């Protein structure tokens, strides 16, 4: 008895040693909190810098300087049935000269004056009239974008203080531009063309519609393949496969594949889909296939983890009342795992959306001036479009590159938003 009593420690909870110890424990806690806070501030800071610099560089691309020009089509004498072949060039040229009062200038000066407007002005007018033939019967006004140097001038990117021989617009052109401004026909509306136009050689006309459609179809293909295949593979491996050397080997390989650089998948796609199967180059179908290969391992891993995280009591509950394995999986386990699978899928797709290297390898950096209407139409994708534009010398593409990145980021945010929305909806069902 006494031996036991001797072994019982008495603690003086108010001793200095214990107090000091307690203090240092609290200090450790405070430090941990501080580290966490610093980390978050860092992360947010970098995010702000990224978005901030993109916005500063890119916001100007969201406006486009345009001129509205009155054109009287009633006097043009164009044949309603042969609009495609009509002489739009001279008609539009005349109207453009008129608006700036430049009809009386010499040929060479006229040409310098016309440089102010986009080269494609005639086609823009033609397309608008074809879209709305009622305009043939009267006077109506058309919106013509200014060409890139004058767009930049209007936005202050080209300074009037630069010596004339060092800037892309000469003093006479500036004078003509100022005259148009004074006339009140110049404006800077929101640049819908950035979203709804396809790519173009001319920055003032270049837009992301082609890239967006290409990315859209690629992601559709990627999802249609990787989602069902990934889930099926994960279910098989997690619920049905025997645990032996072969399944271990498969598991190791899947984990390794998830770490393979995407450019390798691009090379694989080039060799297999283009080389052996002879699928068309630059097609979103091939892009989607390659992206699916790339996302599959991640998706399988995410799905397996989420299947594993469903408590086994649920599985036993289902099996215990005579549900078959298939019913236990599809009625109980998979629905419970679905929120995580959804999140994983959308995050994988978001990663696929931003993937550039494999798409470059299978030629999805083609210069296409039309949008893709299906998975076989050659096109670019958002990241490859960014790549192309960032490589273009024209001034207008600098801000457009940043703007395109912002658009891509907006899509990523949208996808993550959908992921959160879906997850919450699924969770509410339980």
């Amino acid at each position, binding site marked *: 008895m006494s031996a036991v009593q001797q072994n019982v420690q008495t603690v003086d909870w108010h001793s200095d040693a214990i107090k000091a110890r307690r203090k240092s424990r609290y200090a450790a806690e405070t430090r941990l909190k501080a580290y966490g806070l610093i980390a978050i501030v860092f992360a947010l800071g970098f995010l702000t810098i990224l978005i901030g610099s993109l916005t500063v560089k890119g916001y100007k691309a969201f406006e486009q300087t345009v001129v509205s020009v009155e054109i009287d089509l009633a006097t043009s004498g164009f044949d309603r049935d042969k609009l495609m072949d009509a002489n739009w060039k001279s008609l539009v040229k005349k109207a453009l000269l008129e608006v700036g009062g430049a009809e009386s200038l010499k040929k060479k000066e006229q040409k310098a004056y016309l440089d102010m407007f986009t080269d494609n002005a005639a086609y823009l007018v033609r397309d608008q009239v074809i879209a709305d033939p009622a305009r043939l019967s009267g006077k109506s006004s058309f919106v013509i974008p200014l060409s890139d140097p004058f767009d930049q001038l209007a936005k202050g990117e080209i300074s009037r203080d630069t010596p004339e021989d060092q800037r892309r617009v000469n003093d006479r052109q500036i004078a003509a531009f100022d005259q148009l401004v004074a006339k009140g026909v110049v404006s800077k509306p929101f640049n819908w063309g950035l979203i709804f136009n396809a790519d173009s050689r001319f920055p003032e006309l270049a837009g992301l519609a082609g890239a967006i459609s290409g990315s859209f179809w690629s992601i559709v293909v990627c999802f249609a393949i990787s989602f069902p295949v990934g889930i099926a593979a994960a279910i098989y491996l997690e619920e049905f496969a025997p*645990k032996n050397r072969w399944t271990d080997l498969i598991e190791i390989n899947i984990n390794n594949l998830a770490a393979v650089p995407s450019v390798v998948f691009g090379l694989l796609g080039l060799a297999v889909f283009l080389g052996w199967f002879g699928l068309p180059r630059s097609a979103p179908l091939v892009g989607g296939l390659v992206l699916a290969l790339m996302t599959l391992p991640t998706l399988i891993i995410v799905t397996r983890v989420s299947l594993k995280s469903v*408590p086994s*009591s*649920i*599985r*036993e*509950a*289902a*099996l*215990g*009342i*005579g*549900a*078959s394995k298939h*019913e236990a999986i599809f*009625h*109980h386990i998979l629905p*419970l795992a679905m929120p995580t699978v959804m999140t994983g899928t959308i995050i994988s797709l978001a990663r696929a959306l931003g993937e550039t290297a494999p798409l470059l390898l299978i030629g999805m950096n083609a210069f296409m001036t039309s949008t893709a209407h299906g998975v076989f139409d050659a096109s670019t994708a958002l990241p490859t479009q960014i790549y192309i534009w960032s490589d273009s010398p024209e001034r207008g593409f600098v801000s457009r590159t940043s703007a395109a990145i912002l658009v891509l980021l907006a899509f990523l945010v949208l996808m993550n938003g959908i992921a959160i929305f879906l997850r919450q909806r699924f969770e509410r069902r*339980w």
Partner: protein
Amino acid sequence: MNMMAETTTEAKQVQPMSEPSFKMLGRNVSVHYGAKQALFNVNLAVRQNTVTALIGPSGCGKSTFLRCLNRMNDTIDNCRVSGEITLDGQDIYDAAIDVVELRARVGMVFQKPNPFPKSIYENVAYGPRIHGLARSRADLDQIVETSLQKAGLWSEVKDRLNEPGTGLSGGQQQRLCIARAVAVSPEVILMDEPCSALDPIATARVEELIHELRSNFTIVIVTHSMQQAARVSQRTAMFHLGNLVEENDTDKIFTNPDEQRTQDYIMGRFG
């Protein structure tokens, strides 16, 4: 009670074969988890419309044996079962046996309440639905109501059948699980420590329930509570270190067991 008196003599010989009143019969049941043997040649009979209690110290293989009876052990990768277990004279480990049907006939209630994260109604209706036991929605409603009534839960939940089953209290959840098991009209119900997570009142409620269920079902229950075994069961089987020590009328086991080990365990001297 006099039924027990009648059976006392024959229970002494451990494995009376092919009696019509034996619902399930285990012969030489051995179970391995990988290289580790968890059960050694267990011979145990489960009688029709009787509550059989499995008792014994922790880790002695009670759950393992219970899970053999509806082949729940199939879901454990490295688990191997040998010997023979019959249900109404039919070997349940026979290749011809459909395990889905077996588990519908031999239902199970687990130690931890495990309702599906769905509505109370869906929890009970799920079994009848997958087995096609209801011909109409009204039929199904009826099954759900009777099952919940049998589980003594109806009056508490009848106004909130569409609320999630996971929102109930622990005791209610366990009764919901019993209702879920009852809803498929099994012949045998296996219960693995069904009251271990419950307070005394909920426990009393479940025990009452087991009493009532006995007239329609054959029940095997694992329990760590000697009082509970004495209260609810007519037959008791004592396990120790993977062996069946003895199996007899509950009265006999608790008053005058044949084996010293049983005596010691019941008196709380080990386990």
